[in-house]
């Protein structure tokens, strides 16, 4: 593939534009379902697009006095770059599993760390105490959910014959059935659901942002375009992480009609679980979250790995 091929994949489909569109749509589903749970009508489907456009085109971008402009404005762009690259990789590999596009499962797991790091550094750069506090919570949260996340990730690795290439994992599940069809797969799936709830910063694990308490934490000084880019990056992750889960546990996106319908059902299922957890739980304290991920969730993940090892 030549350089323009790569750029096309990255910029338009299935990279930046497509994922951003889907991410904002997912955001709308989230808001709509939340509204219905709370007996409200909810916004129209284009609301999130208007919100982003407002930040990009109308609102002014405030920069705290005395901070490095390049770093302050660069961090949102870095986060967006990470999210775009992960989206492109996951979707391209799903479209053609035989091409080992850019990287494997471990690469994706590490690239997924770039957006939160960008958010934290952005918060640090703004020299605001509340931003520092929020970013430190983000870091502690990451420290706690990474342990069960890595453990849960080894279950598909074992199930797919010790392969870490995403394409091979998709093919292996095509032959042997999805990872989710086993006891270990189910447990690992739900462990990972909880981890991505925290990765995406959804309630009850939104203490890094905690609007009512530390006023959006690392985002506190961000406004206008810079905030818009951060929001866009978050929306993209909201779409691509469930797709990544589908790839790991349900054998990826299928190219036949019935398979694709199943994919949509799986995606909706993941989304509904996230939204229901979000709407039925209050925010927990950071030490509670750490204890939760390090004790029961990790224990469940260990059980899943043990079951997978014994072929269950």
């Amino acid at each position: 593939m030549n350089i323009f091929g790569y750029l096309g994949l990255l910029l338009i489909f299935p990279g930046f534009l497509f994922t951003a569109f889907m991410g904002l749509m997912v955001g709308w589903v989230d808001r709509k379902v939340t509204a219905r749970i709370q007996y409200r009508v909810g916004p129209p489907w284009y609301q999130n697009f208007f919100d982003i456009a407002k930040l990009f085109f109308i609102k002014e971008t405030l920069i705290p006095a005395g901070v490095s402009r390049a770093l302050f404005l660069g961090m949102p762009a870095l986060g967006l770059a990470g999210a775009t690259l992960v989206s492109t990789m996951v979707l391209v590999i799903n479209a053609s599993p035989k091409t080992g596009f850019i990287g494997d499962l471990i690469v994706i797991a590490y690239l997924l760390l770039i957006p939160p790091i960008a958010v934290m550094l952005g918060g640090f750069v703004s020299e605001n105490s509340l931003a520092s506090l929020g970013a430190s919570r983000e870091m502690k949260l990451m420290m706690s959910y990474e342990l069960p996340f890595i453990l849960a990730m080894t279950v598909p690795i074992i199930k797919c014959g010790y392969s870490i290439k995403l394409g091979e994992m998709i093919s292996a599940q095509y032959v042997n059935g999805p990872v989710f069809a086993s006891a270990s797969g189910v447990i690992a799936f739900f462990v990972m659901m909880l981890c991505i709830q925290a990765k995406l910063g959804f309630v009850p694990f939104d203490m890094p942002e905690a609007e009512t308490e530390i006023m959006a934490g690392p985002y506190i000084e961000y406004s206008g375009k810079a905030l818009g880019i951060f929001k866009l990056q978050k929306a993209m992750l909201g779409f691509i992480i469930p797709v990544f889960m589908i790839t790991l546990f349900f054998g990826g996106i299928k190219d036949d009609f019935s398979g694709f319908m199943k994919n949509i059902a799986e995606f909706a299922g993941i989304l509904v679980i996230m939204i229901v957890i979000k709407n039925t739980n209050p925010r927990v304290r950071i030490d509670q979250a750490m204890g939760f991920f390090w004790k029961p969730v990790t224990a469940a993940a260990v059980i899943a790995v043990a079951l997978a090892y014994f072929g269950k």
Partner: protein
Amino acid sequence: MYANILANMVLLPISAGLAMFIIPERYGRLAKFLSFIIALGLFAASIYVFNVKPAFWPGVDKPIFMADTLSSFIGLGIAFFALVTLTYSFAFIDKDIVKYNSYVLITLGSSLGACYSANFLGLLIFWGVLALALYLLVNMSGTSGAAKASEKALVIIGGTDALMLFGVGILWAATGSFSMDKTHLPLDSALSIIAYLSIASASLAKAGAMPFHSWLPDVAEEAKVPVTAYLPASLDKLLGIYLLARISLDIFAMNSISNTILLVIGSVTLIFAVTLALVQHDMKRLLGYHAVSQVGYMIIGIGTASPIGIAGALFHMLNNAIYKSCLFLTSGAVEQKTGSTDMSKLGGLSKYMPVTFAACLVSSLAISGIPPFNGFVSKWMIYQGIIESAKSSGPLWVIWLVAAMYGSALTIASFMKLLHSVFLGRPARNFGDVKDVGLLMAVPMAILALLSIIFGIFAFTIPLKLFIIPAAGSAVFYIGTWSPGAATMMLVAGLIIGLGIYAFMKSKSFRTTTTFIGGEEPSSMDRVSGTEFYDTLKDMKWLGRIYKKEDSGSFDIYVQTKNLISVFTGVLQRLHNGVLPTYIVWCLLGMIGLFIVLFMGKI
């Protein structure tokens, strides 16, 4: 003449270092000049050795020095890091210049000697000189803390050196030779296992792995920064891992038990040291704990016994030396310009020291294993080594994999804290008068940071192809995929998308304001220094206990051995109570014992 090059490379710097003592202190510049020329020459010579690999010293049946693919690569690394840290130290070391340069040259010669030695006797001698040189270099700080730290380092490294002598003795009894050939002695008898573990303990102590790690954070905190960057951060890592690789790959034939021992040591070192690093308050001490924890990856890599894991371990050794010495050098820059490395007294320095900050940011991301930097590639190879070994061994591989990957997440946490409390966040005081470092200090940091980037993006075409795969000695098959070039290109394209969003808007929609904290004056709010970020961990029951025990020295082999020895000497002390009848009773008891033995023999 060429054949003698190895011997000359070892003897020249040592004799120059000894001769340098006669230079009076006020001609410090001459000492600097001489040591720089010698280091430069050795770097050139090591490149030559790396390309040609003269294997024998003529006239002797058995070579004293040799350069194979592994040792010529290590020698190149030693000469390179010596040159870089020496350049930096010209602007950093301001007194005892002659002494410092002479110790550095002696260290350089002995390190090259240890790495080019073709037999264990040479290795033992140079190893001993290195321990002494480290002691002298650390002591140059002149503080009481440095005296204690250097003593600890000398006792631990010297003690394991004695163990190595013991192991070499057993090896000689088993094979009848001291040479470092590919003997592949099987680890099937108790003696050979003891020999392996004894020699391995020397390499682990040098590299700073558990349980011989405790000297490293102390030295990092107390020694002058160029010394730390020179020895514990780069040369000691290269030599320690070199010896471990040498005995594990060539001299002994590893089996699953010895591999598991390495994997356990590696995993424990990794997780434990990084957990301790999280709560440190001093930048240099924090980096010292990371210097311990990163060794874990290399030991795990060698323990996987798969070609890709071993190559990953060697690559990680090189990468770690690059970014870790760079990080120490940035801490030296911060110390020189602000007078402190206490993280609660810093903050916001990125505006005043942009070059230092950029070097520190790149190295921090590299050590955290963020793609596309070099640390990611070597960690990625080690993970593959673990997964590769999983196919042939029991379920324990999950533990090693989780330890390695989770250790990486904790490393990120630790470096986020460091970046925040030193370079970002609100400054602790007005640093308006602080300027960035001069060229002599900036260039070494910039070179190392650039290497972290280049060895990451062009990992497969430059370092792996030229150095690592030949040194590891066997073909490597990747079970994953990673194209750093394409990924970097796409990350840059993504960055451009983000910057483009700023660009296609009118610039007047940007405005500068003061920070907002709920309408309060920013200065009325307590500053978050960042050092207390992870104090939540201290409040957790079992983690808190571990931190308390570490503070009291429970995990320090030096303190524990000292306690053990004082128990024995305590018993002996009590026997010596100075009362004559007691001594007479002991004499009589001894004589009775002797008589019984003698008469039993007769009957």
